[in-house]
């Protein structure tokens, strides 16, 4: 069965609405990316050095990053040689296949949150300034509540103006209790209190917000480490999830963010936010390629429902949806002839 058919089956097998939502969010991405891939395939009928050069540029423009792009191009060249591929028909599917392969080359893990029944599960949200931590927490609380879990939020950002109020609004929207102290208080103390309160109230999931911090700020990273430690001291094995929020518009710095936050807090998953913009979010591939951190969710807007689980195949499907239609109709050759 062809790769695209597999993906399509997979998607139609899952919740249609979700797939649509995911696709909608990626529409702009898909349009700008696939139309270029199409263009490439149409313009270059033969797979030659120039074809690869342009493909390389395309991927670089998607923020995939130099090393990963080179790796992908090498993989493709190998494949092209092995299969003795001469013309560009079917290159789209080969490209997608390899992109997914690169993504999956890490450990085969799921994007499921590590949440178990019968215990207090603690999720710690970390990341640089303004990437969408607080908003993601609101959306996630709504999701978990819908799954029937009891949720509590901890207002661990005591620094930024209005940060506590912002989380409180999300608490109201989702009908979830927010543990808070005054602005300027010690974040570790807030989190400590929140863990105590969550235990007492027997909630299923406690999600802790933290202030945005740039990863090169030693003091702030130490502060985060302390918050992390406090949670671990109160509950063995906690936090059960440390989610790093990454902004899809961020370029190569996202890789350094992932590296540094991982060193300090053992990141267990990534939430890729703002994928509803025109940014390609290609850095995900580089991060997955270099660090073994899976993307668990994607943010597709500012609304309460705009958080979806990440699935690499859907992601690539989103990027190459036109390729799918093309392979199905399979009249690409005819079209190019007509074009002339």
């Amino acid at each position, binding site marked *: 069965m062809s790769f695209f058919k597999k993906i399509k089956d997979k998607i139609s097998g899952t919740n249609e609405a979700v797939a649509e939502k995911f696709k909608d969010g990626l529409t*702009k991405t898909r349009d700008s990316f696939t139309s270029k891939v199409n263009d490439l395939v149409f313009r270059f009928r033969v797979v030659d050095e120039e074809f690869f050069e342009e493909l390389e*540029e395309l991927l*670089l*423009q*998607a*923020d995939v*990053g*130099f090393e990963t792009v080179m790796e992908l191009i090498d993989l493709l060249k190998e494949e092209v040689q092995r299969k003795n591929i001469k013309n560009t028909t079917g290159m789209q599917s080969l490209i997608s296949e390899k992109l997914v392969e690169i993504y999956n080359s890490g450990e085969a893990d799921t994007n499921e949150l590590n949440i178990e029944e019968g215990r207090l599960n603690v999720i710690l949200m970390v990341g*640089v*300034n*303004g*990437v*969408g931590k607080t908003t993601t927490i*609101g959306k996630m609380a709504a999701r978990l509540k819908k799954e029937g879990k009891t949720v509590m939020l901890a207002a661990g950002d005591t*620094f*930024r*103006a*209005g*940060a506590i*109020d*912002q989380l*409180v*609004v*999300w608490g109201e*929207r989702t009908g979830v209790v927010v543990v808070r102290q005054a*602005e300027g208080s010690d974040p570790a103390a807030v989190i400590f209190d929140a863990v105590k309160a969550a235990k007492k109230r027997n909630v299923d999931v406690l999600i802790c917000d933290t202030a945005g911090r*740039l*990863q*090169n*700020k*030693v003091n702030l990273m130490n502060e985060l480490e302390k918050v992390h430690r406090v949670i671990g001291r109160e509950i063995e094995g906690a936090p059960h999830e440390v989610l790093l929020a990454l*902004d899809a*518009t*961020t*370029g*190569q*710095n*996202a890789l*350094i963010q992932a590296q540094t936050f991982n060193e300090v807090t053992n990141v267990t998953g990534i939430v890729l936010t*703002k994928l*509803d*913009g*025109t*940014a*390609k979010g290609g*850095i995900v591939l580089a991060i997955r390629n270099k660090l073994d951190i899976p993307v668990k969710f994607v943010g597709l807007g*500012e609304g309460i429902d705009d958080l979806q689980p990440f699935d690499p195949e859907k992601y690539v499907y989103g990027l190459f949806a036109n390729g799918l239609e093309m392979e199905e109709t399979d009249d690409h050759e005819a079209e190019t002839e007509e074009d002339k």
Partner: protein
Amino acid sequence: MAFEGLAERLQVTMNKITGKGKINEADVKEMMREVRFALIEADVNLKVVKQFVKTVSERSVGQDVMKSLTPGQQVVKIVKDELTNLMGGEQNPIQFARKSPTVIMMVGLQGAGKTTTTGKLATVLRKKHNKKPLLVAADIYRPAAIQQLETLGKQITVPVFSMGTDQSPVEIARKAMEEAEREHHDVVIIDTAGRLHVDEELMQELKDIRELTNPDEVFLVVDAMTGQDAVNVAKSFDDTIGITGVILTKLDGDTRGGAALSIRTVTEKPIKFVGMGEKMDALEPFHPERMASRILGMGDVMSLIEKAQENVDEDKAKELEQKLRTQSFTLDDFLDQMQQVKKMGPLDEILKMMPGANKIKGLDNAKVDESQMGRVEAVIYSMTLAERENPEIINASRKKRIATGSGTSTQEVNRLLKQFEEMKKMVKQMTNMQQKGKKKGRMPGFDAFFK
């Protein structure tokens, strides 16, 4: 410090070619391959990179360069010129209205730093321009956006105009203008909600506000960490509503900052300010030529001097300068200097502004530990006055005594003495360069680079 990674990469590449007495097209090609790589890794937009590489290559293989006695240096100069071009020329100040109030609109993607920068800008306008700003809370969408601006307003004691979240942003802007008139505010800064450049409805809202308030400045606030998409965002905002300048935020991070170069090129709008932290005083005017110098490792002496002027005691500075010139700089002065420098801000940031600082081993990843300064002070305090005047007399037994006295080790004493020697050398180099710079009337530090 932002741009650092790019700086390192480019300098390594440049160093390879600087000294060459003879170069051919292949050399230039090889160098430009590396430059391309460095720029892409720094998030400079690919199209901008291509154009840059093309221009530099063409100029570099020209006859006048190849035939010159110092072709390597010529090529490096071309890179510097073109890089400065990319960054834009002179510093570009805020445009004020002829007739008050001056209206400033803040626009940009979600989370870029608009609201924070609104507060910072008000601080600058009040402190440096003696203005009486009014902040306008026109973000009715993001949870607690109004509280955020109000909190900042309180912090800096600048009034905030808000009407809750039930009125439209256009209506809020209209009423704010009336309020400004009534209360005699000479600047109005409108904080708008973050939005995607492809969100037609919300972009229309910005157009409406622009039409209504006729702003003197429309600042696009951009996160310095933005990748390839920066040009699309900047271009859309510029095309749809028309921006007058850019403010680059989060430059206190370690991003390579390529977005800065791309945006300027694509929109031809100047970067007017850079955000250097979350606090209300962390906004600085952007000096393109200084930044280009810094990227190419020529240091940013101008900023260093300005920082010193703001923080250092005039008389003491004069005295110090005299001592530096006559080379009668002692450990006592060093101690004194250290206390002055502490006032200027984080030491590592300051050191990095010095020309050649990138060549000092370990400074690249130096997170200068301020508590370490305490130890240095202790060591100097344990010296006799004679020793401070004349460090040469410090022999092994004296070192031992000093170490014991300061609760440190002889290694630490040794290290300090060595550092002191190095610093003297560096200071000497710097003063030399400054004098030369004055004579020729151009950027100090230039010569050091082409040596």
